């Protein structure tokens, strides 16, 4: 058993709304796992619940063999990091890139900060020329690269990706997806990636789970999806929709 991340019977309840209704999944170490669904399917909630940002009502989450309780300790954040959807909202508006990257190092008491920041910026293809810019001086793609650099700087083993490219232009999306694949290969990372776009999930992930209104619809491998070997109508609808508009008349 080498599950990097396993979730069992997870329930999330906001006020009275059941956002997740007993979802289970298991992500192997080094694997890239996708969560697909439309808005309200609970895919982002699942990600946030793992990160400790959503109220878990019941169920269990295990990371690298350790069962997580309600709280998250510093050791958890060294293992699991997250990249958010909106690159315009995930960087502090009053901090330079330098300051953004320094913060995690300061919190975890790393001594070789300078070197790590330079290395992180190089790794995401920005270089040190961007180090003292503010978020508003960056394009969407550059912001997302900074967000990835920030997530990687603590050297986690698991990366949670919440629609990391849906706010980006198609050409920039390709660059960011390539970057993510590259860092995953280089650092042997485990990905748990959320997207509404089946094409992106099949491109990035080996296995995936289709979700609808807080529940798992079905678990598939990417090749099953590509070969249209799906069992549920909902998945079939999603597949059809992702092929673009078809004039019926």
């Amino acid at each position, binding site marked *: 058993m080498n599950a990097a991340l396993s979730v069992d019977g997870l329930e999330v309840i906001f006020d009275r709304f059941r956002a997740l209704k007993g979802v289970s999944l298991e992500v192997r170490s080094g694997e890239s796992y996708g969560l697909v669904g439309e808005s309200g399917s609970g895919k982002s909630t699942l990600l946030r619940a793992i990160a*400790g940002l959503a109220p878990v009502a019941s169920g269990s989450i295990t990371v690298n063999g350790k069962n997580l309780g309600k709280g998250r300790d510093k050791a958890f*954040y060294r293992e699991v990091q997250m990249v*958010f959807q909106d690159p315009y909202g995930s*960087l502090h508006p009053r901090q330079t890139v330098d300051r953004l990257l320094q913060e995690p190092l300061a*919190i975890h008491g790393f001594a070789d900060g300078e070197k790590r920041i330079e290395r992180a910026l190089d790794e995401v293809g920005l270089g040190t020329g961007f180090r003292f*810019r*503010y978020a508003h001086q960056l394009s969407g793609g550059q912001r997302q690269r900074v967000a990835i650099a920030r997530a990687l700087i603590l050297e986690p083993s698991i990366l949670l990706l919440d629609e990391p490219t849906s706010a980006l232009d198609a050409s920039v999306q390709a660059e960011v997806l390539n970057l993510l694949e590259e860092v995953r290969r280089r650092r042997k990372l485990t990905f748990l990636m959320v997207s509404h776009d089946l094409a992106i999930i099949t491109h990035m992930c080996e296995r995936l789970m289709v979700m609808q209104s807080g529940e798992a619809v079905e678990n598939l491998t990417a090749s099953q999806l590509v070969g249209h070997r799906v069992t549920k109508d909902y998945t079939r609808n999603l597949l059809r929709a992702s092929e673009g508009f078809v004039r019926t008349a």
Partner: protein
Amino acid sequence: MSTEAIQSRRDWLLSERPASRMQARLGRAYVAWRRFSANRLAFVGLLIILALLVVAAFADVLAPYSPTIGDLKNARLLAPSAAHWFGTDDLGRDIYSRIIYGSRWTLYVVILVAIIAAPVGLLVGTVAGYAGGWTDAILMRITDIFLAFPKLVLALAFVAALGPGIENAVLAIAITSWPPYARIARAETLTVRNSDYIKAVQLMGASPFRIVLRHIMPLCISSLIIRVTLDMAGIILTAAGLGFLGLGAQPPLPEWGTMIASGRRFILDQWWVAGAPGFAILIVSLGFNLLGDGLRDALDPRSGDQ
């Protein structure tokens, strides 16, 4: 400096690729300054406040007479003239000199109140906003209690309890002015609390203390500075009001409000005794208001960083 040198310096400040922490910070300040100085009225406000600072600093040099010792025999209640620009009061003191020295007390009150009230409000507001739940409820109900009374009445009550005097007046005004700051800071905190960038810092493993202090407070500071600047006029007026009622600065201190109070008796025949300090209060309040408006345009994060 040649125009080229100025141009290159400007380019350096406005660079999209700052090479150091310092350049990034200076560039940001420069952009805010340009936005501020483009506003004529705000500039006038700034000049008034700078003038106030200069006058307060060089009062000894600028004032032609002593502010406290008058010439009772020859100079009682003289009308404005070349010798006494703003005339003299009932104790034969030169009003012009008293106003110049009074600027020190005005600054003393305004700065002390700002230093005491703003941080208290900021702390209460951000902690309440970020913590939520019971902490929020308790802190905000306390704030509401303070807000429920008119400022001057509450200040009066405190001064009455503490005893008259300018230090107690400052304290009383500070105690009554923090609640609006707490409200602003809390509102600002609530809007950023759930943003992804704060979530991202949580995911770094930052403690709540660190998040409030290093990530939320800096975002609240600019709107707080604006509000404090706009409140300065009100603080001056409250201080003057307390002085007028005899609960603030005590004679012979040349505090503007106290001066108006003592000039009240002659207001019909010797208008300059109350009029001159009144005019000084008006000008300085106006200066702070204009400055505050300009700062709002220059610093307000909502007006866009783009």
